[in-house]
């Protein structure tokens, strides 16, 4: 006997398309469709930390998951990292040429008077990875004054889509989702910490389907779905 | 039927002092512009607090700075016709007239007053569409219909034509005599003052 309502899943906004596809697949197995609430990881983590009655939390980085774990809001033994991503440099579709992102690459010179779109580099995960990568390449100091920080990675994508900036740093999944941009360069995976998406069940969870859906997210079937959207899976 | 007033109040740089004691009927308050007539009426009505003094109307102490008595405006049962009409702009003439009415008031009295004031045809109108004299007549009606224990009239008949004026004065005199209402009236018309005033007081 299925619960009348699916579990409430708090998921990072950048997982919107892929998590919806996963929820649909789960529902096709005869389960009530999970209710998905998409927002920034920070907002969601704070809500979970406040003891809000949700079932699963899917974060865009480990930091916010740690935050909940420290506060004892996670159901023990349910935390798992299930997705990975890549960091890319994008340009507007229709432009040409690619940039080899090696140590010392003259990105600042290529930008000229233009700017580089990124998610906020001190706060939003995509921005933090980007900053780390640019530091690793040894060009952060010269690029930093030219950075335009958006409030999330999709807003950074929009800046490039609109032609407000010629280049941007986003996830490979974002670049794949948009037809108006193309990948102009891929950051070496070694240039930043691995990009990982953890999931966990919350202690406040009451929905009997919650654990089932969590396991489904870790399943092969779900992995295939996430790969379709450009994520890497383990 | 009496006023016993002794008040002092400072407004701006002016000291207003008024002291009189009037037995019965209609008392006329007379004086040059800016002497403090309106201020005196406001103090009797309870709208302006005297710095010091005592107000007694018909044996009821309305204000006494010595014993700390200060009856609330709405409890003084005053029928006040202000110098300006002060009609409620968001209410029709009819609603203005009925605003102060008691539930048990009788209808024939109402009809008679409306008739003498000649405002029966204005009932559904909004105050801003009234002429100066029409607004004033509605204001008089509103005060008279509130079942007052005494009347304060601040130049009630200015901006009315002579015949209408006569009729309204007759009405007011009748209220004085039949209902025994003490009346305090400000006017600048010495003829009117002499005819009506049981007593005339100069400020």
């Amino acid at each position, binding site marked *: 006997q299925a619960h009348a309502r699916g579990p*409430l899943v*708090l998921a990072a*906004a*950048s997982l*919107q*398309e892929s998590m919806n596809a996963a929820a649909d697949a789960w529902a096709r197995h005869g389960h009530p469709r999970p*209710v*998905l*609430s*998409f*927002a920034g990881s920070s*907002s*969601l983590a*704070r*809500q979970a930390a*406040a*003891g*809000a*009655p*949700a079932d699963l939390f899917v974060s865009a980085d480990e930091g916010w998951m740690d935050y909940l774990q420290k506060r004892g809001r996670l159901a023990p033994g349910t935390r798992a990292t299930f997705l990975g991503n890549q960091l890319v440099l994008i340009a507007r579709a229709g432009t040409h040429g690619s940039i080899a992102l090696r140590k010392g690459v003259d990105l600042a010179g290529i930008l000229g008077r233009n700017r580089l779109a990124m998610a906020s580099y001190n706060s939003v995960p995509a921005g933090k990875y980007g900053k780390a990568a640019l530091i690793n390449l040894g060009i952060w100091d010269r690029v930093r004054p030219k950075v335009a920080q958006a409030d*999330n990675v*999709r807003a950074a*994508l*929009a800046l490039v*889509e609109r032609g407000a900036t010629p280049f941007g740093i986003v996830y490979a999944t*974002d670049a794949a*989702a*948009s*037809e*108006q941009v193309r990948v102009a360069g891929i950051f070496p995976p070694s240039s930043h910490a691995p990009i990982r998406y953890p999931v966990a069940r919350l202690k406040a969870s009451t929905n009997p389907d919650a654990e089932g859906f969590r396991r489904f997210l870790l399943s092969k079937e779900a992995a295939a779905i996430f790969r379709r959207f450009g994520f890497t899976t383990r | 039927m009496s006023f016993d007033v002794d008040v002092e109040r400072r407004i701006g740089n002016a000291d207003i002092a008024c002291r009189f004691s009037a037995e019965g009927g209609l008392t006329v308050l007379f004086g040059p512009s800016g002497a403090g007539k309106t201020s005196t009426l406001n103090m009797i*009505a*309870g*709208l302006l607090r005297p710095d010091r003094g005592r107000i007694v109307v018909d044996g009821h102490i309305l204000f006494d700075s010595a014993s700390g008595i200060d009856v*609330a*405006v*709405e409890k*003084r*049962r*005053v*029928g*006040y016709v*202000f110098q*300006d009409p*002060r009609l*409620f*702009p*968001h*209410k*029709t003439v009819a609603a203005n007239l009925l*605003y*102060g009415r008691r539930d048990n008031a009788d209808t024939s009295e109402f009809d008679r007053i409306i008739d003498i004031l000649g405002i029966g045809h204005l009932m559904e109108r*909004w*105050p*801003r569409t009234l002429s100066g004299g029409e607004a004033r007549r509605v204001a008089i009606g*509103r*005060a008279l219909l*509130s079942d007052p224990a005494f009347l304060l009239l601040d130049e009630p008949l200015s901006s009315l034509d002579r015949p209408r004026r006569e009729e309204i004065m007759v009405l007011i005199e009748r209220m004085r005599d039949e209902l025994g209402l003490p009346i305090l009236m400000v006017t600048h018309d010495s003829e009117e003052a002499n005819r009506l005033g049981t007593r005339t007081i100069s400020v």
Partner: protein
Amino acid sequence: MLSAEQWGVVALSLKIAGVAIGVTIPIAFALAYLLARGRFPGKVLVDGIVHLPLVLPPVVTGWLLLLAFAPDGPVGHVIEAVTGGTVLFRWTGAAIAAGVMALPLMVRAMRLSIESVDRRLEQAARTLGAGPGRVFRTITLPLSVPGILAGAVLGFARGLGEFGATITFVSNVPGETQTLPLAIYSKLQVPGSEHAVVQLALVSVALSLGALVVSELLARRAGRGFHVL
């Protein structure tokens, strides 16, 4: 033109903004009256607190609401004890966020109208035997109708547009707290969904235009008599 799901979002948004404004109007009017007429120490402080949701970034307001209404927060604690439930992730929470964000706008507009009520009319009413309560109900309140309507329209529009505090406070739960702005935000996160964004934005605009027209009609009705309108 809209899908059934989108109509659901519209209905939910109207419910949330409507309830929020309906409940907030009397609170806002009381505060406006206090600020317009009251003379007390710390008035500027009350004024400042009322303006808070306007100055703070909405996400901060949302966060503060979250702290207050969390099950172990000061307000949430009481709510849980009384009703056994919570407003988190519920439409009631979204309505609270909308109301709080709309409050400063409503108070300002109402205060402006209260301040322009001619006190001499209130005096006249009192000489006619009306006590302070009746004067308030029959004179001050109706003469403040232009400000109340303006405040209600501003508040309703603000409530319909409320995003940051809502998503921070009660998340983005479809069918519960996903109002039009949150639905638009969700669409904005999906590259290439500009069409849906524009469509939903147009619905927002149509709703607030509707509210405007209704308020203008009410204003005309209420203002038949007096020069203000």
